[in-house]
């Protein structure tokens, strides 16, 4: 048995400094740190971490290469199954996946698999010009709708199999949630740009400014010779609480808040044309990663006071541990077991506060988390100037409305086979948030991967 070594921490920007900039918070391992951390892996014969990964990265294999100093080799192994390692290493909830099942986690801290993945991907990207092998074309065309994690993964995997893949993206930049949603300080856009570039180098064509269902329809894709279609249309309409005052000026959905900041670069207004109004005091409602992103953006936009308002307790928060930790370090004020009942406005129609009620936890609900119950007559007001609702989204209705044969669940998600992503229409697959509702980058990638396998089998069965 090797000597027990503690988990290698990763350098980060100082909290007092970083809340003044949008630069990346986590700075990544240096080579010696990566080797040291890699040496903690005991190279299980039957690794428990691999099945914990939605795209089944060969984790012990890449970690062994890192330990031996073959960082490029490590990156290559990861990329066999994961087209976006620099992204996943940064935004995956590893503590719920690979690191949760790591054998070391039973008696101490798991191997920092995510940090090592990020290290390999960054090492490769920063030191080499990445030239993937381009598969010879098999003569079949496939259309992918949406260039987020699901679409990029599906497209990349199909291109590797020789398909001529075209991605149709509605926005003016590729990347989906990676570009409009996740902030620069957690996932630098240059990293996303290069990961997208990698998928392009695999032979994938990306057409921007095309709204599937409006600019071009699914039927037109088939008429145009595409033999299969993957729908990775992602998150849609933002959810609101349906409480009074939500349309006061100064109430944002997290989608709008983050899109203005990340995609449109409103934090650089007026150099960039898109404005944003961030008040002195900002409340973000919600407890997921999006809520953490939104509240930390508020600090960087100059808010003096930033609150998270969440109706359950900390243990029930869906946010990644690291983001929760970062938000706390940045002095976000967590108001847990607190639920808004009303947004208050001034005589000019702008937000002036948010009225909340205290909650307590009751019996577990369907999600297994303890159900929050209102404490009677416990209403109180938090004075704020801006409110951001980070409550998730319901899928975009456009594609299902205009595509014959495509069924949706009552809540709007596309009906798709869990194993293959096959929809109710022949030749059409779907995956990611469009099917599951708000979930994670890696789950969307897993869905894109499974669909690629099924689409390949489908097309081969026809010829």
């Amino acid at each position, binding site marked *: 048995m090797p000597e027990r070594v503690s988990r290698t921490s990763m350098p980060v920007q100082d909290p007092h400094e970083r809340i003044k900039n949008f630069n990346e918070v986590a700075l990544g391992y240096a080579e010696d740190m990566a080797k040291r951390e890699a040496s903690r892996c005991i190279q299980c014969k039957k690794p428990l971490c691999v099945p914990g990964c939605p795209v089944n990265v060969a984790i012990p294999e890449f970690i062994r290469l890192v330990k031996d100093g073959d960082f490029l080799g490590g990156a290559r192994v990861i990329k066999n199954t994961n087209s976006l390692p620099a992204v996943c290493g940064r935004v995956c909830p590893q503590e719920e996946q690979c690191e949760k099942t790591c054998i070391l986690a039973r008696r101490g801290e798991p191997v920092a698999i995510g940090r090592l993945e990020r290290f390999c991907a960054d090492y490769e990207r920063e030191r080499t010009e990445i030239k993937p092998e381009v598969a010879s074309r098999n003569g079949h065309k496939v259309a992918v709708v949406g260039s987020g994690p699901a679409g990029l993964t599906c497209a990349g995997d199909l291109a590797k199999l020789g398909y001529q893949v075209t991605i149709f993206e*509605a*926005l*003016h930049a590729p990347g989906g949630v990676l570009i*409009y949603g996740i902030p620069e300080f957690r996932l630098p856009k240059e990293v996303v740009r290069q990961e997208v570039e990698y998928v392009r180098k695999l032979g994938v064509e990306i057409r*921007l*400014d*095309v*709204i599937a269902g*409006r*600019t*071009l329809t699914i039927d037109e894709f088939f008429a145009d010779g595409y033999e299969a279609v993957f729908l990775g249309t992602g*998150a*849609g*309409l*933002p959810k*609101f609480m*349906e409480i009074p005052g*939500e*349309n006061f*000026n*100064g109430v*944002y*959905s997290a*989608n*709008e808040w983050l*899109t*203005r900041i990340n*995609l*449109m*670069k409103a934090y650089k*207004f*007026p*150099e*960039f*044309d*898109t*404005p944003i*109004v961030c008040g002195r005091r900002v409340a973000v409602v919600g407890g997921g990663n999006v809520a953490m992103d939104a509240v930390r953006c508020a600090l960087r936009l100059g808010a003096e006071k930033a609150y998270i308002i969440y109706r359950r307790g900390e243990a029930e928060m869906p946010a990644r541990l690291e983001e929760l930790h970062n938000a706390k370090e940045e002095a976000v004020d967590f108001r847990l077991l607190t639920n808004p009942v009303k947004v208050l406005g001034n005589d*000019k*129609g702008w937000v002036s506060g948010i009225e909340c009620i205290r909650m307590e936890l009751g019996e577990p609900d369907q999600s297994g988390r303890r159900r929050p119950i209102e404490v009677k007559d416990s209403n109180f007001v938090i004075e704020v100037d801006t409110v951001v609702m980070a409550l998730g*989204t319901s899928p*975009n*209705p*456009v594609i299902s409305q205009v595509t014959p044969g495509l069924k949706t669940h009552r809540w709007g998600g596309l009906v798709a086979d869990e194993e293959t992503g096959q929809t109710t229409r022949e030749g059409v697959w779907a995956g990611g948030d469009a099917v599951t509702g708000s979930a994670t980058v890696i789950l969307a990638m897993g869905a894109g991967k499974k669909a690629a396998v099924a689409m390949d089998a489908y097309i081969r069965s026809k010829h």
Partner: protein
Amino acid sequence: MFKILKKQILTPVTKKMVIEAPLVARKVQPGQFVIVRLHEKGERIPLTVADFDRARGTITLVFQEVGKTTRELGAYEAGQDLADFVGPLGVPAELLEHGRVMCVGGGVGVAPIYPKAKALFERGVEVLSIIGARSTDLIILEDEMRAVSHELHICTDDGSRGFHGFVSQKLEEMLKAGVQMDEVIAVGPLPMMRATVEVTRPYNIKSWVSLNPIMVDGTGMCGACRATVGGETKFCCVHGPMFDGHLVDFREAIRRSQMYLPQEQAANEACRCGGGK
């Protein structure tokens, strides 16, 4: 990139541009809009489609220079490119198959009224139109509207031409005189649409309005464009932009349209010296 093929100055503050956008032109229906982004640092703004030519693959925009982006666009010339041009967006207008429809356009709102009037006219619906502006030199698309209307009335706020008063007042006069109509479509500034639907309310005439709120993506993702219609929150980009005007909360819509006024003014000041860059 999307090329500007033609530019025409309609009034000192209103420009007409014909844009090469074949995919959008193939699909667009009256009532729909596009999102335009001028350049890499630009914002995404919604603009209503004033006309389209499927054969030539072009979309006609008519816009008033109100903010930084529209002023900047106004300074673009034929031959220049727009970075992004996305559409068609929104739900097409539900137009009657027969009967008589009153089309009311105020200011630059005459532009989005035009494709609806044209479609109604072409399908044999009797089209009555009222168009208006502050003064005679600000009246746009008069000839185009005349060509697709069985009756055209012109109004000016200052009385410099036609009916002296607002388009809503002209409509009220006609209703009082007993003119019958099956539906009204009103497009223009929010106060004009509000006044128009207040005129038709006592007569119980279905009155469509087209909202043009602040948007970011325009595809149903951000929720910036929400409006209260019939007590429910609607997203104008995917549920609209046309709504039953009698159900729209105009007070809220006007307030929300002013959310970025200070920033708009600051941006306008900043770009003024550059003559629109």
